[in-house]
């Protein structure tokens, strides 16, 4: 099991499977009860395609289910994004 500090994730770039940079990580939304990461809050690149992700103000929310890999970049697959569970 490998793990990563949340602070390391801040500012990391998000790319989709076709290699387009979507933006960078601003924050993360998690469930305080289970600790499950629900969404990544992304500061979108101005030229990035909006895709099918939800937006919240000037930020874009990417469900963590769409995340394929986290290393130097965060790779997301737009087709894998299932709607995040509703807030309690």
């Amino acid at each position, binding site marked *: 099991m490998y793990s990563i500090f949340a602070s390391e994730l801040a500012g990391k770039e998000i790319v989709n499977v076709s290699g387009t940079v979507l933006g960078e990580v601003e924050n993360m939304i998690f469930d305080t*009860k289970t600790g499950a990461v629900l969404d990544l809050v992304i500061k979108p690149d101005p030229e990035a395609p909006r895709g099918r992700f939800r937006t919240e103000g000037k930020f874009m929310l990417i469900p963590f289910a769409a995340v394929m890999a986290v290393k130097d970049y965060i790779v997301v697959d737009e087709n894998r994004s299932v709607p995040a569970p509703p807030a309690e």
Partner: protein
Amino acid sequence: MRAEITSLMGLEVYTQQGVFVGRVDDALLDPEKGVLSGLALGSINRDLFNQKSRGVIIPYRWIMAIGDIVLMRHLKKHGKDTKRK
């Protein structure tokens, strides 16, 4: 409850018996499972952890509630090196 991870930072961590443990410095994420696996604490209570380290990491499953403070399970033995408290 949904919360932003940055809202965790700096929160004080207490055990369910009201003992101060430390302050949240960072969170540890398991990217494969998509869950938080632990919290990294700084400014730790030296009565609980009498080690020289700057901080400790507590597993997320010890956490009972997160609100204005973080509440965690009270464990008699924190790590190897504990004083009686």
